[in-house]
């Protein structure tokens, strides 16, 4: 299936990356070739093969639900773009 400019714009929208028409066209050309290469996967019979998500097939560990870290919010918020009263500031979402 051929990738369209609308597919590119939709993916950019989902990924929250602003993209204009010119960029969408440029990316479309490059992604078209990359997906052409990716399509090689479709030629192989994978029936009966279990998907492999991880190299070691380990199960994720659970930890006890206890506090392990000290409060370092001042240190961490010291590098934030905008902070007030210990809160990260972003534009108003609800009018």
């Amino acid at each position, binding site marked *: 299936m051929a990738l369209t400019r609308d597919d590119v714009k939709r*993916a950019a929208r989902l990924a929250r990356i602003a993209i204009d028409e010119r960029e969408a066209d440029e990316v479309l050309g490059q992604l078209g070739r990359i997906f052409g290469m990716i399509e090689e*996967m479709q030629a*192989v019979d994978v029936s009966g*093969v279990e998907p492999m998500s*991880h*190299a070691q097939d*380990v199960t994720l560990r659970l930890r006890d639900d206890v506090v392990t870290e000290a409060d370092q919010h001042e240190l961490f918020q010291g590098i934030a*773009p905008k902070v007030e009263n210990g809160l990260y500031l972003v534009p108003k979402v609800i009018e």
Partner: protein
Amino acid sequence: MHRQTLKSLSDALEAGKVSSVELTGVFLKRIAERNAVYNCFVSIDEERSLAQAGEADRARAAGRAQALTGIPIAQKDIFCAKGWLTTCGSKMLSNFVSPYDAHVVQRLNEAGAVTIGKTNMDEFAMGSSNETSWYGPVRNPWNTDTVPGGSSGGSAAAVASRLAPAATGTDTGGSIRQPAALNGICGLKPTYGVCSRYGMIAFASSLDQAGPMARSAEDMALMLNAMAGYDPRDSTSLDRPAEDYTRNLARPLKGLRIGLPKEFFAEGVQPDVAKAVDEAIREYKALGCEVVEVALPNMRLSVPVYYVLAPAEASSNLARFDGARYGYRTPEYRDLEEMYEKTRAEGFGAEVKRRILIGTYVLSHGYYDAYYIRAQKLRRLIAQDFTAAFEKCDVIMGPTSPSTAFRLGEKAADPLQMYLSDIYTIAVNLAGLPGMSIPCGFDSQGLPVGLQVIGNYFREAQMLNVGHQYQLATDWHTRAPADIQT
């Protein structure tokens, strides 16, 4: 002093011939004089490095020295290091001073190593030439018109140009091994899970693995001793007993079975590269090794599979860069959506955006089974090929990269060509196996060739033995670029 290996510098420190402050000063001076040529380092903090060196000297005086105590190590800028600018080669993190240490950095600090600086890299480790860095390309010290490879190109070029005795790297699809090969140095990607990913800025979490880059197998063994170890903060870190990776170095190789996959010697490999690898295999035979043919029939699918799985994981991992809590934020925006979209459009470079878009697309509704699940199934077939091959051999060998260093700009406009330069390394990450590159010769232009050695799971000590014995019999790893001789 800068021409010595990590091991000989360690011995000199132990013998009291030099202090860490002196040694650190030697490398800082070299960096100040030469970094402008190669662009290996993106951050230097002389005061911080010298303070760490002073501490190392005091630890030694107090009888608390280990092998790496006082040794300057370059850290790839993907590793968070407390108080250091940690940019991951991106405008997005160009103002990010890390408030904490990555586990690998913490382990090296505890071992007494001195952080000599942070090295340049492809943006978010996405690249094979170091040309995607926000800080400009790194130049290969063997020929400054060529690329150093990537993504750990700054680390590799720093070691090759003798601006650091050793460096850290990370490898998602070849990012330690390919630049090691192109710079005539050694690089090892351990088994997935051996080094903690905590504080290592995530690209594709099921593939990312940290490892050492150095001048010899012995130096890498010393580095890995410090870097490896269980860390509960990384859910995929493996809880295994500590290993001494130097323990097998001296073992003779007689009887070792080397598997040669015919897929590694098919079309597409540069003749000079094939020739150097063939000669290395001959050397191994002379050391008493046996050669067997093995097959990796699904390896040809590793590039397509990788370019589904890695972007899919990246699109998820890189969602965190939104301008809200740290890093770059666009200066002007009307609402929250626009803040996100402009921050990410301006903060990420073209290659990173390309991969986020691929990943978003293959994970989106309607395409998930055709791309993501299918790629995961093929991943299993690729891993099973290796399992079958290791029934017939102890290690697998072949070229690390199909070509030697290519010219700056040569592949920059053609992402697909760039992706194919990792054709021999990617399958190893998909399987989670350990892989290593060691220098094994030069092409007709005098550019280095790397031999790839792939081991079975957790056989790093055996691979380092395989590297060390070859390096006792040959001198490729001691060669340096012409202007480094002095």
